[in-house]
């Protein structure tokens, strides 16, 4: 190897590429990534949001009414009659995205068609954050129910994001009997009906979830499957700007 004859430096031997080609490549690449992002966004988009029906009561207080249900499968909620990808997963319906007005009294009803699974943490057998600290179970006011009799919980809890007020509401749902027969003309037994009221503050975006380990016994602590995916046992609560839906 002769040091004095380097065999031509790279600078001398360069073939120039066009910068336009590079710019096009970057644009195409960016478009592909953005396209994938939008595809994933569309795939994950929620089918619809359930808006509370509102009315003004005496004193100008906005009152909102919202009714949802908890099912032992996915055949009655947002996944359609066929149940979608996981028909056997427990679910809330008709949807898990909820909207309620700001500065309102929300009167909520939850019909539960599912049987009980003992809570991982008995604390969530308590009713919290509701008017009077109670919920009405088939009409009967209770501050707590036996943690072993809980089918699901409906728990709003998010703190803090963008300066929105805290909104902590937790209501356990009483399970139907394990071997309850289906009601006439229905695919489910007669539900237990839970009603409760809570106040909303300024507008904000919150999440809710179920704390009952209803995700199937084959998952550790019962928190697999429906517990780990939006649209089943978890969703969002949007507190709106007070506009009537």
């Amino acid at each position, binding site marked *: 190897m002769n*040091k004095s004859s*380097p065999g031509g*430096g790279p*600078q001398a031997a360069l073939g120039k590429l066009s910068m336009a080609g590079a710019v096009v490549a970057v644009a195409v690449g960016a478009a592909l990534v953005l396209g994938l992002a939008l595809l994933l966004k569309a795939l994950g988009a929620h089918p619809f949001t359930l808006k509370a029906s509102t009315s003004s009561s005496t004193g100008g207080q906005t009152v909102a009414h919202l009714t949802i249900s908890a099912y032992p499968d996915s055949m009655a909620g947002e996944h359609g009659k066929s149940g979608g990808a996981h028909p056997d997963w427990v679910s809330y319906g008709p949807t898990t995205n909820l909207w309620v007005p700001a500065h309102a009294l929300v009167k909520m009803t939850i019909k539960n068609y599912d049987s009980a699974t003992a809570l*991982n*943490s*008995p*604390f969530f*057998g*308590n009713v*919290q954050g509701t008017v009077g600290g109670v919920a009405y179970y088939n009409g009967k006011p209770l501050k*707590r129910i036996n*943690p072993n009799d809980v089918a699901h919980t409906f*728990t709003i*809890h*998010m*703190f*803090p994001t963008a300066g929105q007020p*805290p909104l*902590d509401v937790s209501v356990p749902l009483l399970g139907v009997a394990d071997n309850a027969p289906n009601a006439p003309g229905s695919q489910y037994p007669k539900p237990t009906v839970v009603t409760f009221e809570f106040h909303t503050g300024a507008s904000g975006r919150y*999440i809710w*979830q179920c*704390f009952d*380990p209803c995700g199937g016994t084959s998952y*550790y*602590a019962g*928190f697999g499957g429906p*517990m*780990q*995916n*939006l649209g089943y046992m*978890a969703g969002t609560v949007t507190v709106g700007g007070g506009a009537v839906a």
Partner: protein
Amino acid sequence: MPRMTPAGRTVLIWWAITTVLGIALVFNIHRILPGLLPTAASPLAQSQDFTLGLFTVLAVPVAMLVWVTAAYVLITSRTREMPTEDGPPIHGNTLVQSAWLGVSSLLCVGLVVYGLALLPDIYTPRPGNQLVVNVTGQQWQWTFSYPGYGNVTSTSLVLPVGRPVTFRVTSVDVTHSFWIPAMGVKVDANDHEITQAFVRPDLKGNYTVRCAELCGLYHAYMQSPVQVTSAARFVNWVHQQKPATA
């Protein structure tokens, strides 16, 4: 002792200048980036902030030694074309290598000794009358119960200012991590295990408990409010809470 070359002197001078400037920057970083570190609401957090500053100050001369030397060579000797002649055939310098090894070893041992001295702050309770708080992590909420006060349980953490706290942390499902950024406290919450963390909050205010270990769907939302308040207000609060259901 080898005589210092002009190049060596230049590098040394610039190393000293940049080191002083860098350390000055470290001392003033809170003016440039306010809110860089969370409020230090406990002696532990203050000590951690001091350690972060100390390590940064120690790092400045080390980093500058590498960067100033590299910058000097780039500024004085750079060329876009293939160099027509080679650099000097220096294969090493025993003195430089020994000195480097010695200094870096000393620095390292110093850091270890410093860290060992601070370990008791992490792993042993602050002296005094302990407030025991049982912390339970679950997917995706913290609950706090106070065995000294009838085992009352809440989803928010309220602590009296100035009283040492022992957190006894566990989980009922997967691994979480109990973290109060403002207090410099962190310990994992493990199923079927109880782990401990210790702190003495000494600044009233509102802070946050964070889960710091990915725990599934709503990990991002697994946070709870912390309030440090006067002893009287704490007692008042604790008596309003419900006991944990049996």
